């Protein structure tokens, strides 16, 4: 069994409440942190090697050390709880079950950054989790863990939870800041970076829920200890939300470095493919990362086992690799239509594009339409080339990475599954659109 740093107590009855959370060591990390200097905390986070768990994998300690600290200007820590990347559901799982871990992490992070007011931005659809967090925040205020002079340290700290209203793009950190200011979620042109001019033009750090939570064990155990877990630059544990055609979908905390094959097939994790089927493909890090066929997700191009680390998953670049991304691990069995799955992704990106950049706004719409045409049985071989052409014209030409996030799934699907596209256009009767109906065991055939 791998070590559990974030989920160790997740199944303790009542761990949602402050009392039970404290009985299990809750807020000991904050207590310890308040006895340290802010810079020493940043140093521990640097030593831990923690990399942003929101998708980009940027080292958290380094991000914290970039925060501008002009005199007399308030700064903020903003937690990104927008979690909307298809395949990703780890943050929701954690916030719902152990809300105080996030509050403790926010308090430690804010103290380290010198932020006296911080915000948790949660996606609007999760209003029920918003209320869970609000309740936990109220409890923490009542116990003197938030508010004036927290734990008698002299540090004043206010924490608020803020809700969005349905927009994937608000997960992008500058769009999130705009949204938190009460505006449309249009990403900003960078620079200036949020570390210099973020929320209300003040220096701001935006961190993912899991990154913020990970700071708690890092402070408790020390950065060096944390860094002993994992492989190379992939240190510590990572939450993976696994879904699709597996026996045991769910959120798993893994030690970075376990083989992908073990993650998919071992009973400790996904428990293998449903109904005894064979594996066809995996999207390993949320819908935005390249899809890989079975042979490439299990093994590197040189035949060595692929590991669950930032480096191993991206080994081979986009020719034979992918990315760890947000940890949204989507598994597809042998009966899956990669083209239809891709269509749902392209429809998603088209729906979620904020529309500021033409290549993204128009390109996502075109890709959705061309895929729709192919699935409708009217595609041609030129359409497959057209898809390739459109996706290649988005990357690097947009304000934010949503454009790329829309292009990569298309590029990788064509790269690795071109024959499926070609089969669909040459022989429309082979199009498998409803290949999933029998999975709902009680479905009547006329509905399917």
């Amino acid at each position, binding site marked *: 069994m791998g070590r559990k740093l974030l989920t160790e107590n997740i199944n303790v009855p009542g761990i949602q409440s402050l009392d039970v959370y404290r009985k299990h060591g809750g807020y000991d990390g904050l207590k310890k942190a308040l006895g340290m200097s802010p810079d020493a905390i940043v140093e521990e986070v640097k030593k831990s090697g923690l990399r942003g768990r929101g998708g980009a994998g940027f080292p958290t300690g380094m991000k914290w050390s970039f925060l501008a600290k002009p005199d007399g200007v308030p700064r903020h820590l903003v937690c990104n709880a927008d979690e909307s990347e298809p395949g990703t559901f780890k943050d929701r799982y954690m916030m719902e079950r152990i809300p105080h871990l996030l509050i403790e992490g926010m308090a430690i992070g804010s103290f380290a950054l010198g932020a006296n007011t911080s915000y948790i931005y949660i996606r609007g659809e999760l209003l029920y989790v918003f209320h869970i967090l609000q309740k936990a925040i109220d409890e923490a205020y009542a116990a003197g863990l938030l508010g004036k002079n927290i734990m008698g340290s002299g540090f004043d700290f206010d924490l608020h939870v803020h809700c969005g209203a349905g927009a994937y793009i608000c997960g992008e950190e500058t769009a999130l800041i705009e949204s938190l200011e009460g505006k449309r979620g249009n990403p900003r042109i960078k620079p200036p970076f949020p570390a210099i001019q973020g929320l209300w033009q003040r220096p701001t750090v935006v961190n993912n829920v899991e990154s913020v939570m990970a700071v708690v064990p890092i402070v408790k155990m020390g950065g060096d200890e944390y860094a002993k877990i994992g492989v190379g630059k992939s240190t510590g544990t990572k939450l993976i939300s696994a879904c699709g055609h597996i026996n045991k979908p769910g959120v798993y905390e893994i030690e970075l470095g376990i083989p992908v094959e073990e993650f998919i097939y071992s009973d400790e994790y996904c428990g293998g493919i449903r109904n005894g089927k064979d594996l066809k493909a995996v999207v390993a890090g949320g819908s935005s990362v390249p899809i890989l066929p079975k042979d490439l997700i299990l093994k590197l191009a040189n035949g060595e086992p692929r590991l669950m680390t930032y480096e191993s998953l991206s080994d081979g670049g986009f020719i034979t690799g992918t990315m760890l991304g947000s940890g949204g691990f989507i598994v597809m069995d042998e009966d899956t239509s990669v083209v239809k799955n891709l269509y749902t992704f392209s429809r*998603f990106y088209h729906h979620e594009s904020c529309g500021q950049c033409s290549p993204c706004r128009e390109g996502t719409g075109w890709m959705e339409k061309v895929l729709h045409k192919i699935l409708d049985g009217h595609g041609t071989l030129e359409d497959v080339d057209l898809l390739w052409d459109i996706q290649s014209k988005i990357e690097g030409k947009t304000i934010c990475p949503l454009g790329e996030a829309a292009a990569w799934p298309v590029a990788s699907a064509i790269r690795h599954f071109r024959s499926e596209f070609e089969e669909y256009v040459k022989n429309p009767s082979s199009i498998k659109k409803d290949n999933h109906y029998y999975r709902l065991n009680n479905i009547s055939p006329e509905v*399917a």
Partner: protein
Amino acid sequence: MNNENKLKFSNEALALSQRMIKRYPEGKQKSALIPLLHVAQAEFGGWLSSDAMDYVASLLNITPIEVYEVASFYSMFNLKPVGKCVIEVCHTGPCWLLGSDDIVKYIEKKLSIKAGQTTADGMFTLKTVECLASCGTAPMMQIGETYHENLTLEKVDNIIHECRATVVEPVSHWSKKEIK
């Protein structure tokens, strides 16, 4: 704003709004716009009329256009009347892999409407939505603030039956019991 049908929050909702506005620094009250629009949608029948949006603008001391441009950006805000129960079925990849298309088709057939439409009796609106961070318990749908997960057709039957039997007032994402 039309003075004759002036909309107004309940006292509870007004108090909640004031608490929310205080979460943001002096002069940054506009930040409370999205939370207040959720409350408005709960208070005013599940959707945002221009009167409702004008009212929110007045609470925040901002111009109505600042509210319209935000309300029209976010998918959770309904700018047209909707049924009392809005059924939002996730249809993104991970849910599709486990049969969300069948769920949508089944509900369409059961309620005799297409996705995007409202039943003639004003009870149900069916919407397809994008990933709701519930992919591990797919297929799933949301009604109001409630996530219904690991759906089967039988579960869908029960949920719809339950709505018909119990829902009187419009169900919004921000549940009325939280406005207190």
